[in-house]
């Protein structure tokens, strides 16, 4: 059974067809990569499913339920979380605070006005455990605005992961980091996602990363889905080669 399905999902920005009648499906437990050239509609599709944009038409089904008009918070409660292409953190708060906020929100504790946040020991312990999984525990007390880009990328994913999602969108989790750092970052994310059986949709431009970590690849081009298949199938697909890598690609 598919965890997520979109039917004829459409979003136009004026004359630009960002997402054009897209039927997209993600199976439970899959690690799926969404690829395509700049402007292909990958991030727009994620923005629609995560609730950042409202679609012009079409349907989004998550675990069989229609979430097309659901609020961002409703989708998070249903089990959809995301990280961002440009890191989105609470820079003036510590790494621990960043992750703890997700837990407070997940447990609906942020509604409490008259209890001390620091006394919620279980929350801080869980936040610390999550930072440890992402290899960030030694920087737990540092401000998120002051750590390196690779660590910020990991923290961005950790904040989303702390929501305990069933489906996690990772929008370019290695963008802006050095080539040397990319594989370690993906190793950490992949190991956490797979060990907790989280379904993940990864948007990425680095083809080595994509072929190494994906179960399936979906290729988008000009707002539509061009191809879908295993890494090997996509590697051999001539149409994909022409559309994504250019006609000169060998």
């Amino acid at each position, binding site marked *: 059974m598919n965890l997520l399905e979109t039917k004829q999902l459409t979003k136009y920005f004026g004359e630009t067809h960002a997402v054009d009648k897209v039927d997209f499906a993600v199976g439970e437990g899959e690690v799926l990569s969404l690829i395509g050239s700049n402007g292909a509609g990958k991030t727009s599709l994620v923005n629609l499913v995560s609730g950042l944009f409202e679609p012009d038409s079409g349907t989004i089904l998550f675990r069989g339920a229609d979430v097309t008009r659901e609020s961002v918070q409703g989708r998070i409660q249903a089990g959809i979380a995301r990280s961002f292409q440009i890191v989105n953190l609470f820079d003036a708060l510590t790494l621990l605070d960043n992750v703890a906020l997700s837990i407070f929100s997940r447990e609906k504790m942020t509604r409490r006005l008259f209890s001390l946040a620091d006394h919620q020991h279980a929350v*801080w312990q869980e936040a610390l455990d999550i930072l440890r999984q992402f290899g960030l525990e030694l920087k*737990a007390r540092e401000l998120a605005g002051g750590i390196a880009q690779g660590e910020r990328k990991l923290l961005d994913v950790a904040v989303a992961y702390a929501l305990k999602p069933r489906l996690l969108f990772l929008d370019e989790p290695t963008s802006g980091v050095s080539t040397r750092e990319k594989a370690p970052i993906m190793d950490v994310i992949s190991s956490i996602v797979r060990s907790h059986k989280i379904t993940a949709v990864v948007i990425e431009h680095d083809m080595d990363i994509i072929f190494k970590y994906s179960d399936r690849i979906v290729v988008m081009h000009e707002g539509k889905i061009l191809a879908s298949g295993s890494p090997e199938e996509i590697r051999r697909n001539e149409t994909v080669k022409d559309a994504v890598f250019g006609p000169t690609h060998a």
Partner: protein
Amino acid sequence: MSTAALAPRARSPLRIVVWAVPIAALLALLPSVVDPYGAILLAYGLVMAIAALGFNLLLGYTGLLSFGHSAYFGLGAYAVAFMVKYLHVQSMELFILGTIAASLLVTFLFGYVCVRYTRIFFSILTLALSQVLWSLAFKFFWVTGGTDGLRVPTPKLLGLVEPENADKIHFLAHAYYYYVLGVFVLCVALMWLIVHSPFGKALQAIRDNETRARFVGIRIRSYRFVAFVVSGIFTGIAGALWVPLNGLTTPDILYWPFSGELVFMTVLGGFHNFTGPIVGAVAFNYLKTYAVGFTVYWQALLGIVLVVLVMVLPSGIVGTAQLLYAVARRRVGR
């Protein structure tokens, strides 16, 4: 490294007591060591500190600059004056309860409109709405007394009646001063709890990054709304405490320059920390009092102070003190 070393140090109220008790004791002893005028002046400062604390829940913790908090301060003052004039109430506790009810009503209404907007739009909207209240107080003179205002006599504190021939100055400098101090301590404790609660953390998250806050599941508008209401109630309570001190309320207290004074106090003390608005409000109160006595151009003097403050001490009195303390500690540690 151990978990204990990395986990946040629990903010125990007992740890706060270490520095809060001596300050409270100092404030409690003050009326017996200064003249009545000094005690009354400090009572004004404490009242303004409650208002600034409320104001800073929006500015410092939620990232919303209100230019209309005179509305809630004035609302508190007029709520008390109306209770005296139309309901013949004398009890200070009933004044405070009535003010909370009135503040709830008005902040629900104003908050519903204002929290849909941020930045300059929020500021202008709060300013505009406060001016609506000012114009009502100004124009409906048969209800509000217009520019003559409404008089508020000495209230009953905790059900105790002052003797008929009691000296009002003595009452304000002692009994009323302690009453204000008690409410101030209660308000500081409550606000401290709120800003250190999970709700307070959510407000700071909204202030720092609204998009991310949404994507960790925080309903931005609802949290801003609650912050707006709490902020308005604190400022309203300050207004209710102010009016017996002043003996009179006029539309001036609803006018926008008073909102500007609340901004000034908070910036003076520093809006990035909890104690900044308290220190700023007390300091501003002394500054304004002495400036008024010093020159007829006191507004110009205050303006110059504000300009210098923003340029030289952008983090306010408390922020700068913290910075200097940190530098001194580093030097001692070398």
